[in-house]
């Protein structure tokens, strides 16, 4: 796996100039579906370049929370502010937030009728109005970073799961997002392909990308997470650094959860 030298959308000087402010503010977010309260009063602040891992049993509201953050679901109440822009009814705000937030899905969701390169080029060309040449140059660079430049003209169906997910990551990165959201990016993969995707994500984290990752990959969480949040029944059970979370959790609920996934 090649390294990712300059993948960070923030230039180092930028990062130095900006204070370690909160790029993502989540306050008391609620979201219900008919008959289910999926998210119940979730609050957190995420700093620039921070990597936060969210864990929790199935059905605890992790996906719903993540989808609220980029507006895929509309929260019933609460506050979400992405890089100073509130996610409210203002259409321009919503549009900007979904352009600035990259999302990677469990099921990849590549566009099957487009080649790998066309998948990645589409949004930069249509949304950022880049020329095809410009977009392609950047896309090829990103494909090189995720290690599949040779597949640029293939269709998604001809790629392995791991390769498809790496394309999906490159596609999201092509919009130069300020935050990347990952919803169980490796849980649909065969075991032998999990690492190639995690390696890309680790490189991304080291390069300074702000990331919110829903995953149960302990190795990944230990290695790159700044903070781990355990969610249950729609709210936070415990928050901690990987060290305290895995070796010395405060909550009995966390211990039970860890014993289940270990």
């Amino acid at each position: 796996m090649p390294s990712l030298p300059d993948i960070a959308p923030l230039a180092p000087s930028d990062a130095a100039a900006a204070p370690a402010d909160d790029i993502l503010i989540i306050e008391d977010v609620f979201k219900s579906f008919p008959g289910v309260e999926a998210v119940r009063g979730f609050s957190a602040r995420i700093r620039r370049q921070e990597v936060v891992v969210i864990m929790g049993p199935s059905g605890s509201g992790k996906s719903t929370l993540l989808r609220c953050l980029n507006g895929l679901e509309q929260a019933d109440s609460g506050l979400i502010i992405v890089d100073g822009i509130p996610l409210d009814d203002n259409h321009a705000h919503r549009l900007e937030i979904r352009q600035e937030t990259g999302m990677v899905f469990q099921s990849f969701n590549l566009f099957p009728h487009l080649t790998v390169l066309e998948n990645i080029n589409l949004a930069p060309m249509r949304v950022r109005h880049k020329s095809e040449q410009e977009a392609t140059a950047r896309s090829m660079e990103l494909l090189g970073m995720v290690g599949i430049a040779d597949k640029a003209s293939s269709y998604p169906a001809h790629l392995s799961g791991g390769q498809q997910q790496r394309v999906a990551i490159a596609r999201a990165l092509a919009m130069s997002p300020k935050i990347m959201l990952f919803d169980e990016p490796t849980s649909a993969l065969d075991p032998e392909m999990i690492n190639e995707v995690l390696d890309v994500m680790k490189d991304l984290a080291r390069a300074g990308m702000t990331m919110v990752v829903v995953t149960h990959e302990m190795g990944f969480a230990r290695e790159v997470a700044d903070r781990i949040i355990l969610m249950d029944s729609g709210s936070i059970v415990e928050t901690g650094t990987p060290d305290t979370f895995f070796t010395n959790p405060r909550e009995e609920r966390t211990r039970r959860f860890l014993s289940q996934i270990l």
Partner: protein
Amino acid sequence: MAPLAPTTVLRRFWRSPWRDIAQFVLLIVVVVWLVTLSSARLGYNWQWYRIPRYFWTVRNGRPVVGELLQGLGYTLQLSAVSLVCALTLGLVVALLRLSSSFMGRALSRVYLEITRNTPLVVQIYLAYFVLGPVLGIGRFSSAVLALTLFEGSYMSEIFRAGITSLHRGQWEAAYSLGLSTLDSYRFVILPQAVRRLLPPLTSEVVSLIKNTSLVSLVSLADLSMQARVIAADTFLTFEVWFTVALIYLLIMVPLAITARWLERRYAIAT
């Protein structure tokens, strides 16, 4: 390629335009059989040699187009114009029905309810006798209007089914990348939907062409109208109607083959 299970073959056949053609051929076989039977009884005098002149004749050394060929041209013209209009209307109605606008959804529902629950014949009369004079449009335009309104509702159902059958993840990916709704439709949803739509759309085109024969009711000089006139004038009833049926069939077969070819050409590898 692995041999297909018989049920799969059957199902594919059932969904394909070939089904329409097979129906048509079967129908013709039955009719021919019945006609042979009855003509023998009636002592019908077959005069096939009198048919070619209705395609064309040579007068003063110049070829002259006959009534049947004229009618065919008219039918094709009417079909083509109505098809383009019905496809456009169908797409717009489907998008309105799927939109978040309350007015859009209500409007499309009203349109669908009205057109689906009125026979085409009634719509043709309405367009010709009521809408035509009101809008000040001629006979041809009235026929196009009636066919468009009628077929548009079927087209819209086909479009809607194709769009909603796409996995939600495609929308979500397009949305997350910041694509506008229009761009999501244009570059992500419709190109995929169209591939699924080709087989049902072809069937609908076939039925549209068949339905154009109904406009002869308002004395439009299409193929069926010409056939009626010739049959009434010459008593070549059987010959004329067999010829016309064969012409309709000759339009459908290339259509079915084209649809097949398009379907393969744009099949998404999965």
